[in-house]
């Protein structure tokens, strides 16, 4: 039944990648400069891929919607990056990182991909250190490590609470070096609005110059989509305001399959929502759980302020429920536990939608200075936003949409179902299964960009004879006119509601019905509601200004229009997956202790959706997941 | 040698030259102040110092030429960087406020905002000063044939000069209070151990220079001394020619010779009362 060829190489898992690299075809050095590669997005995956391909000699063009490549949202990642270096001598290995990641992903990821990820993780750290990324160090001058959720070893490298920033700036510096050399051309303030396929291959993109408003055509021999996730479908998320699904969604509509969109990660430690004007949620790094203890009052009616509640009246529910991992359980588990307590009425804050994250013990044991050195910037940020001092009063936190494990389906080579279209980083679905462990996103983005795509893209170019095409090709003409038509449509509706109001409405439906807990009735309702919002959007949206200028409302309109289609697919996928796994929790499928219950017999597969037209239901394809190395067990952190 | 011109033309290079010339000019100020302080020892010491200094013709020429170059570079760069800095923001802000929390002086009074202005005023003062003392053009009649000490007293007792000298050196101090600290930063001389000292050195140096120099016109008014009664330069020269070296370094003996008659301006004004 499956049309999906994962192209996982034969052989024992530890040798697959090495063997595969030996078998991949190569492009001769002096031929590389004849190829043009388009990279969409300049986050960790995009910048690292573009820089590495440029170094190899390809001509690369990068595009980002921000005003500079350095501002991609990878920059906001706080906690760290995992690598199987075993520097602390605590028993880590490639195998353990592989195993933890597969287990953490609730056995819904592709083994071979995860193993490769663990394998190259050590090289990433080497590469970043060589670039001058200032990782935290011990007094002896060697690199420092810390623990992260879902692991019993310290394998997380970090740069205070700004690891993403430092890694991205490292990749950005490598990118800038290639721009300086003329191998990469960097186009900022450009948004990809569609993909151009010629003879079944991805051969170009239509982007909008966000300053002049002009549509521009770019032709290439391969297109790398590094556009991040779709968390903003929920309106409120920890994603940047501009993060969107448009590029990926356009590719889906041009023939790429969308895999597992229902896998969304709700991060347990975010600053709670405080009002309807709120535009985004702020993450407090998971690393805080290393020293912070999560609790709620034992008594539902306890309205005392937290510092007045004695130890005996506090319920450290994570330590109580999961004694082995305690506060360091994976994100999905921690989030659901917080929701469970709040649903039962134990929640704190005016809204009752928050739990405490307490540093009292850590400060008493280690001193405020030590805590400041580890989390200073996070505490500072928390104080800025809430006007409370977390050194004195416990933080209030609540889960928020943070990362999306689903994405465009890719094979082992990171190639989508459209030949020549590669998908890297959060935009693809491959490595995290149904739940991503902390400090693994940075690892995956850089692994894809530095160490996978440069090999596999070359293989594609070497093994396919691609015809020379230019931007006058009728396919470009066709796609551009469709894009223009859509822009004209937005501007011509002249309705009465702002784009944001639709986005907010969609977000509420998504959060209520496709959030931390889902059920069939709710999902049916979501599909119906989303269709209704979409219908109204196309009748009644108001986009001010014109298309020939910098017009942020127009940009948002395009993104929200796509979220309104995408949200429905997410709900459909959640509905079809009749089990609970990782970030996808179906209330119908839980153990008596309210833990997620997987159905390995029927759902140990990737669901990949094929677009069938705007009015038709998409087709759900399956890629069976074969676990040859890891035994499927009920995930337990007790 | 393109690297030299490139470096000098760069923004950091210009600042570097600015700092170096400023530093050397500060050196000149210190020497000048020390020389002038001899006024407090006594007229003869001061006069001897002045004559000895001026007898070193070659040295004076070189020094004057050097100073001229230093001033020229410092002033030229001042104008040029100022012009360039203005060019870099042609549309000004409608509202602009400082964000420095521990600011001791309000923003609109901070010396760094007036470096060109204070520089120009100090330069004008310098011209007046040179006109008075070096080129002898402001009051040639009164000063003709007078000893340096007497000249100084006469000039500094002229009310207009008194005011311009005091304003001149106070503005110089204001200029230095930013300039000296800034110089350390520009030359890259920073270290946590010495930073508090460096932060203090600008204002302290500025106060020393400003107070030091401003004290002379005030002193000139306060001492009971009549410069017109003192012997002229020819008599003095005769005398000094007969002096031995030991006389020069033992100035106190000549000090006794000066007269303290109530001819001084101060004394006369007292008499009037």
């Amino acid at each position, binding site marked *: 039944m499956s049309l999906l060829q994962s192209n996982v190489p034969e052989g024992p898992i530890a040798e697959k990648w090495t063997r595969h690299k030996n078998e991949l075809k190569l492009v001769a050095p002096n031929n590389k400069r004849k190829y043009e590669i388009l990279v969409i997005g300049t986050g960790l995956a995009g910048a690292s891929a573009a820089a590495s391909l440029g170094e190899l000699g390809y001509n690369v063009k990068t595009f980002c919607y921000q005003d500079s490549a350095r501002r991609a949202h990878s920059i906001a990642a706080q906690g760290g990056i995992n690598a199987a270096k075993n520097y602390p001598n605590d028993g880590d290995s490639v195998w353990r990182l592989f195993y933890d990641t597969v287990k953490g992903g609730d056995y819904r990821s592709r083994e071979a991909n995860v193993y490769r990820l663990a394998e190259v993780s050590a090289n990433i750290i080497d590469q970043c250190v060589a670039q001058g990324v200032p990782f935290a160090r011990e007094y002896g001058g060697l690199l420092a490590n810390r623990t992260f959720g879902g692991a019993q070893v310290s394998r997380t490298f970090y740069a205070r609470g700004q690891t993403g920033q430092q890694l991205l700036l490292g990749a950005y510096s490598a990118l800038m070096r290639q721009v300086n050399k003329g191998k990469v051309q960097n186009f900022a303030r450009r948004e990809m609005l569609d993909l151009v396929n010629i003879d079944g291959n991805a051969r170009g993109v239509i982007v909008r110059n966000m300053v002049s408003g002009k549509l521009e055509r770019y032709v290439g021999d391969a297109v790398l989509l590094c556009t991040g996730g779709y968390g903003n479908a929920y309106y409120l998320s920890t994603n940047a305001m501009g993060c969107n699904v448009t590029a990926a969604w356009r590719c889906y509509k041009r023939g790429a399959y969308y895999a597992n969109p229902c896998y969304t990660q709700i991060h347990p430690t975010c600053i709670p929502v405080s009002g309807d004007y709120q535009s985004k949620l702020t993450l407090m790094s998971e690393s805080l759980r290393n020293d912070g203890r999560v609790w709620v009052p034992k008594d539902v009616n306890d309205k005392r302020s937290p510092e007045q509640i004695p130890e005996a009246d506090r319920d450290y529910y994570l330590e109580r429920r999961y004694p082995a991992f305690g506060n360091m359980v994976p994100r999905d588990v921690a989030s659901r536990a917080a929701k469970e307590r709040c649903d039962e009425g134990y929640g704190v804050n005016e809204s009752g939608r928050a739990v405490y994250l307490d540093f009292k013990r850590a400060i008493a044991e280690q001193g405020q200075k030590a805590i400041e050195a580890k989390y200073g910037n996070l505490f500072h940020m928390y104080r800025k936003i809430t006007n409370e001092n977390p050194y004195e009063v416990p933080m209030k936190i609540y889960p928020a949409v943070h990362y999306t494990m689903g994405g465009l389906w890719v094979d082992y080579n990171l190639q989508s179902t459209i030949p020549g279209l590669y998908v890297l980083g959060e935009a693809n679905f491959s490595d995290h299964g149904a739940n991503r462990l902390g400090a693994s996103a940075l690892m995956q983005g850089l692994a894809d960009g530095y160490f996978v795509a440069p090999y596999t893209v070359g293989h594609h170019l070497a093994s396919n004879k691609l015809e020379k095409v230019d931007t006058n090709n009728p396919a470009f003409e066709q796609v551009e006119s469709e894009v223009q038509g859509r822009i004209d449509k937005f501007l011509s509706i002249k309705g009465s509601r702002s784009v944001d109001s639709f986005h907010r409405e969609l977000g509420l439906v998504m959060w209520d019905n496709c959030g931390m807990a889902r059920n069939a009735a709710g999902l049916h309702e979501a599909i119906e509601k989303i269709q209704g919002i979409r219908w109204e959007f196309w009748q009644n949206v108001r986009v001010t200004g014109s298309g020939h200028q910098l017009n942020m409302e127009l940009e948002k309109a395009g993104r929200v229009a796509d979220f309104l289609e995408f949200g429905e697919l997410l709900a459909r996928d959640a509905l079809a997956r009749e089990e609970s796994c990782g970030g996808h929790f179906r209330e119908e499928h839980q153990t008596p202790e309210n833990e997620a219950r997987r159905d390995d017999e029927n759902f140990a597969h990737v669901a990949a959706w094929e677009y069938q037209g705007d009015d038709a239901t998409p087709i759900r394809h399956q890629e069976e997941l074969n676990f040859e190395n890891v035994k499927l067990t009920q995930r337990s952190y007790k | 040698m393109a690297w030299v011109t490139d470096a000098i033309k760069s923004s950091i290079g210009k600042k570097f030259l600015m700092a170096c010339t400023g530093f050397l000019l500060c050196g000149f100020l210190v020497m000048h102040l020390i020389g002038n302080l001899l006024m407090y020892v006594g007229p003869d010491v001061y006069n001897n110092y002045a004559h000895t200094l001026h007898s070193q013709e070659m040295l004076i020429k070189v020094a004057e030429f050097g100073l001229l170059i230093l001033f020229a570079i410092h002033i030229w760069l001042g104008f040029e960087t100022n012009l360039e800095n203005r060019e870099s923001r042609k*549309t000004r802000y409608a509202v602009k406020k400082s964000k420095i929390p521990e600011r001791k002086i309000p923003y609109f009074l901070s010396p760094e905002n007036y470096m060109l202005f204070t520089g120009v005023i100090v330069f004008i003062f310098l011209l007046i000063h040179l006109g008075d003392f070096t080129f002898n053009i402001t009051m040639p009649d009164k000063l003709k044939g007078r000893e340096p000490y007497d000249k100084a007293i006469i000039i500094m007792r002229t009310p207009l000069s008194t005011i311009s000298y005091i304003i001149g050196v106070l503005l110089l101090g204001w200029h230095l209070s930013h300039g000296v600290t800034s110089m350390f930063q520009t030359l890259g001389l920073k270290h946590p151990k010495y930073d508090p000292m460096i932060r203090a050195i600008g204002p302290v140096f500025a106060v020393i220079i400003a107070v030091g120099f401003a004290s002379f016109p005030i002193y000139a008014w306060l001492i009971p001394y009549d410069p017109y009664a003192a012997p002229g330069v020819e008599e003095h020269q005769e005398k000094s020619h007969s002096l031995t070296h030991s006389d020069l370094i033992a100035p106190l003996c000549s000090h006794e010779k000066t007269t303290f008659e109530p001819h001084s301006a101060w004394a006369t004004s007292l008499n009037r009362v």
Partner: protein
Amino acid sequence: MKLTLHIWRQSNKETKGEFKTYELPDVSEHMSFLEMLDVLNEKLISQNEEPVAFDHDCREGICGSCSMMINGQAHGPDLKTTACQLHMRKFKDGDDVWIEPWRADAFPVLKDLVVDRSAFDRIMQAGAFVSVNTGNAPDANSTIVPKMNADLAFDAATCIGCGACVAACKNASAMLFVSAKVSQYALLPQGDPERKTRVLRMVAQMDKEGFGGCSNTNECEAACPAGISVNNIARLNREYFKATLTSRES
């Protein structure tokens, strides 16, 4: 609270801009500054007016997109804070708020409060990198970096490239930005091989972009949301001096 906003409106790079005044009757003190602007924009859209364009993205103070002068101060009155992290509790009922774009000839205004900061990218392209290709790196722990230097390098590396230093400087100088990057690499052994060429090229590019010189007023340090110290500027001067005298490149 009620606020009177005076906001710079400019349609594009070519046209002249002007201040327009808007009244905003209920602003919650819990809002961030940008959320307050969101509310204004909602209102403008409902009146069929064009909303105020401003750069923003992460709204966590790390991406460096947001960039506006608030009552004459880059990113507003809070220290070590970007405009997106500034909260309305810093303002009082009845306040007048003046909002302007960064002003520097090297940062031309594109629209309203949006400016073009690509000059920063070009400075980075001139030398803000270590020339190592992917895949050549030795083991990460084969290079020992004293913790003190690693921490100082990190402090310099936290620059978010927002341009507040340029905006706050009376000369629109980019010295703090350039010095942060030069310092990061100068403090790490990885940056050593290209140390001299890097500083020479980056400074040359900085001058070419039309930023002003440094007058050591320290306004940049006070305006910097990442708390980059002016000590880095001293280090940049030192590095530049050393490189000028000893670089073997012409």
